[in-house]
């Protein structure tokens, strides 16, 4: 299902219309040649304009782009599509101007839309989402030229939407501004949907990260899908607007949902009453996949893989994924450490600094400590802190719910992207069996 948000006269291009009229005998070869001559005149005018009237020579590549841009402008004129008898040589220049002005207005509209989307950005630290919002839309607008490069769109728009990447749908069969506009319209609709749950979004994403054991920063994740799936499940609960589900609610849903299609239809029916028609129609793009997920969840009793819920606090360690310290405080601590001269004092400064795990990692990466200081620091850490350090520098060991062991083979296998990793591994290798076991148990809680 890949219907365009705004179809708008996509049925016939200018060239298609000319061929159609020729087939129907409404236009002859002489008239077609006259139309071609007009197109060539427009192209010549644009070539001279492109060269600031200095030269009549242009690269073939640029000329073809100009030619395509002229046809692109003509594709966006409704006049002759409503009344094909108007498609004559002496009207071509006028139609071109109409098309060009339409594209200019559309570009202006995209600019405003991009600015608004940026202003209303969701607070989700997902790299692709942020890149599209803050860079790709604006880069496209900056590079776009309706007269010379109307069909170009260099941006990938690689933040996946509800029905996947634009690339997976052959960029919706669109080019140039049409492509950017279509993507922006979908992005806009998704963002409007996500804003309905703005006050729950940050917590939900945090719980998602805890559950999956990975940060959303580099994931190819669609935020609307995250919320929509959760909303569809919540539709079966007494309070459908509460997306932050408890384990009890998860277990209730797991018992209640026995038929994928029935539940999906019911959930969508209830969803229809809570969002506007355009959003609802758009959300149907997810339905088929949702039914498949439900079928898997029912057959494997694995609803906890799909539903985000609040994990129990007891025996679970909350690790921070956000920085706790502002830049000035961080730099103060670094300065204090550097001012100390002896090993013990420097290590003590770090231990008593109340830095978050991210800040500690940053300080260790700065190489302000020598080998002896690193070793002294590690010796003073308890099992929990050692476990957290390991968890952060080797996140790949915790993917897909697995937990590593601290045996010699594992430690030997792990890469040392930084020098202090080697020292940490060496320290972990010297721990007695009891402490190693304790750390491995903490790994279970850090999932």
């Amino acid at each position, binding site marked *: 299902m890949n219907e365009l948000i705004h179809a708008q006269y996509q049925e016939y291009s200018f060239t298609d219309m000319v061929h159609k009229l020729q087939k129907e005998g409404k236009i002859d070869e002489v008239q077609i040649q006259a139309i071609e001559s007009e197109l060539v005149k427009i192209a*010549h005018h644009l070539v001279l304009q*492109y060269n600031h009237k200095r*030269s009549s*020579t242009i690269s*073939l590549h640029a000329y073809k782009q100009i030619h395509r841009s002229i*046809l692109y402008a003509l594709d966006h004129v409704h006049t002759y599509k409503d009344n094909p008898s108007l498609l004559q040589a002496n009207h071509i220049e006028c139609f071109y101007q109409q098309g060009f002005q339409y594209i200019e207005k559309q570009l202006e509209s995209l600019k405003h839309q991009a600015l608004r989307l940026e202003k209303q950005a969701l607070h989700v630290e997902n790299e692709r989402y942020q890149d599209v919002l803050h860079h790709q839309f604006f880069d496209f607008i900056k590079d776009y030229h309706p007269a010379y490069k109307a069909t170009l769109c260099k941006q990938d728009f690689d933040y996946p939407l509800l029905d996947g990447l634009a690339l997976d749908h052959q960029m919706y069969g669109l080019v140039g501004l049409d492509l950017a506009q279509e993507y922006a319209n979908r992005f806009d609709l998704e963002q409007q949907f996500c804003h309905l749950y703005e006050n729950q979004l940050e917590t939900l994403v945090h719980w998602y990260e805890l559950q999956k054991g990975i940060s959303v920063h580099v994931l190819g994740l669609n935020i609307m899908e995250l919320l929509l799936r959760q909303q569809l499940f919540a539709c079966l609960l007494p309070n459908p607007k509460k997306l932050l589900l408890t384990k009890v609610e998860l277990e209730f849903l797991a018992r209640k949902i026995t038929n994928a299609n029935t539940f999906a239809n019911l959930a969508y029916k209830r969803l229809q009453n809570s969002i506007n028609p355009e959003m609802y129609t758009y959300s149907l793009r997810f339905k088929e996949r949702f039914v498949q997920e439900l079928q898997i969840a029912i057959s494997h009793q694995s609803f906890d893989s799909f539903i985000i819920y609040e994990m129990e606090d007891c025996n679970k360690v909350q690790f921070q994924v956000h920085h706790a310290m502002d830049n000035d405080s961080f730099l103060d601590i670094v300065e204090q450490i550097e001012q100390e001269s002896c090993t013990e004092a420097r290590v003590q400064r770090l231990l008593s600094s109340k830095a978050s795990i991210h800040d500690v990692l940053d300080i260790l990466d700065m190489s302000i400590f020598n080998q002896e200081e690193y070793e002294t620091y590690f010796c003073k850490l308890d099992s929990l802190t050692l476990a957290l350090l390991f968890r952060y520098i080797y996140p790949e060991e915790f993917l897909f719910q697995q937990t590593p062991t601290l045996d010699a083979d594992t430690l030997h296998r792990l890469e040392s992207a930084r020098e202090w990793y080697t020292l940490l591994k060496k320290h972990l290798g010297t721990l007695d069996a009891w402490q190693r076991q304790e750390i491995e148990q903490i790994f279970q809680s850090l999932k």
Partner: protein
Amino acid sequence: MRQNNIPSTTDFSLQLHDVNYEIAQAGHQLSNEDINKLIVCQKQSYTQFGLIDIHANIIFTIASKLAYSPYIRQVDFVDVIASFMNSYYAIRKYVRARLYDDELVALMYQHYLHNHGQLDSECIYQIIQTVRSSK
């Protein structure tokens, strides 16, 4: 729809008349057949360098310039124009629209005279460097 445009010779009767008036004093003349041949050469040249020229004015610009060259005879006038035009497009490929057509032809002509009626690869390279470093 056509991508290229080859102008017809009937478009150039006036230009041909004007340029023949200009070059006659140097003892040169161009016929319709000469123009036909030069238009074909023009297309071969600009295509060779991945370019397109929207009209054939450059033929007349070059003809006017070369007419008073001490290194040309009437028998090889057309061939020299064709060769010069080929060099013109070779340079255009690398300098784009930094100079007007007639400015570039004038610059080329200077180098052509300086090099005793030749525009070899080294000459072309020097012209490209001159244009690129000037702006």
